[in-house]
């Protein structure tokens, strides 16, 4: 009798472990952060033209939508999403702020000159510390901001569906 119970418990245990591991297989191994960060972080950054240092308080202070886009000239997906940003930049309800991440200034300048500039302001993040203030861990990454709050966060390049979603938000 006792042996039977032990045998039964053993089987239950193995089935339990198997189920957990099997379920684990279907989990995506890529990390998706808990978007616990709702308020925009405070930081100061040099602007691309290098004439001034801006505090984040004075960047997102108007009563409209802002889109913060983290980009770099060396980032290939950024090139793909750039035309979408340019289109979106024509919409006057939204202001697009660029955060140039760990980039070479000349390359970034060439990128903007070649592909156009959708950004009203470009901030510099030479060492990547400002992106961390935003809770970003890769580029491109885009944050939709309204009234100093992050409403939506897009990890990876934008596509036309996501742009439609943004347009829906700012209607």
């Amino acid at each position: 009798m006792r042996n039977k119970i032990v045998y039964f418990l053993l089987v239950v245990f193995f089935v339990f472990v198997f189920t957990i591991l099997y379920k684990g297989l279907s989990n995506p191994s890529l990390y998706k952060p808990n978007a616990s960060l709702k308020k925009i972080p405070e930081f100061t950054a040099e602007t691309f033209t290098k004439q001034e240092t801006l505090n984040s308080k004075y960047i997102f202070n108007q009563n409209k939508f802002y889109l913060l886009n983290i980009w770099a000239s060396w980032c290939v997906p950024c090139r793909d999403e750039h035309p979408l940003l340019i289109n979106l930049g024509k919409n006057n309800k939204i202001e697009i702020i660029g955060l140039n991440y760990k980039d070479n200034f000349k390359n970034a300048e060439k990128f903007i000159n070649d592909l156009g500039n959708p950004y009203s302001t470009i901030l510099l993040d030479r060492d990547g510390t400002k992106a961390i203030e935003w809770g970003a861990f890769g580029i491109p990454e885009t944050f939709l901001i309204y009234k100093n709050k992050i409403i939506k966060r897009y990890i990876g390049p934008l596509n036309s569906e996501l742009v439609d979603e943004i347009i829906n938000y700012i209607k």
Partner: protein
Amino acid sequence: MKFLNFSIIILIIFAVNLSKADEITLQNKIYKNLRCLICQGQSVYDSDSEFAISLKLVVKNKINAGFNEDQIYEFLTEKYGEWILYEPQLNKNTYFLWFLPLLIFLFGGAIILKKFINIKK
């Protein structure tokens, strides 16, 4: 007099070195407890990815700004969620995790104790 000056200088250098060494130990301790989110299965300490390099810099800056270890963890958890820490913090979601080993230990101890009592009888 010369000897006194000399020893004071040596003492100062030694003290500065010691505090610097403490700082580096703390830095490394924190780096090792941070998960590099874009490299699978590596800590920030082990990784040389862009993300890890920047994160190391942020931690260093925070230490210089007077943040202590817990404050740095709090800062990073707010940005990235608790997943960034290897060692889970003690809260209502992790009570079970933290106290299970203790429970198992007590349970095991109880079994051993019972055996001992049985043998004595």
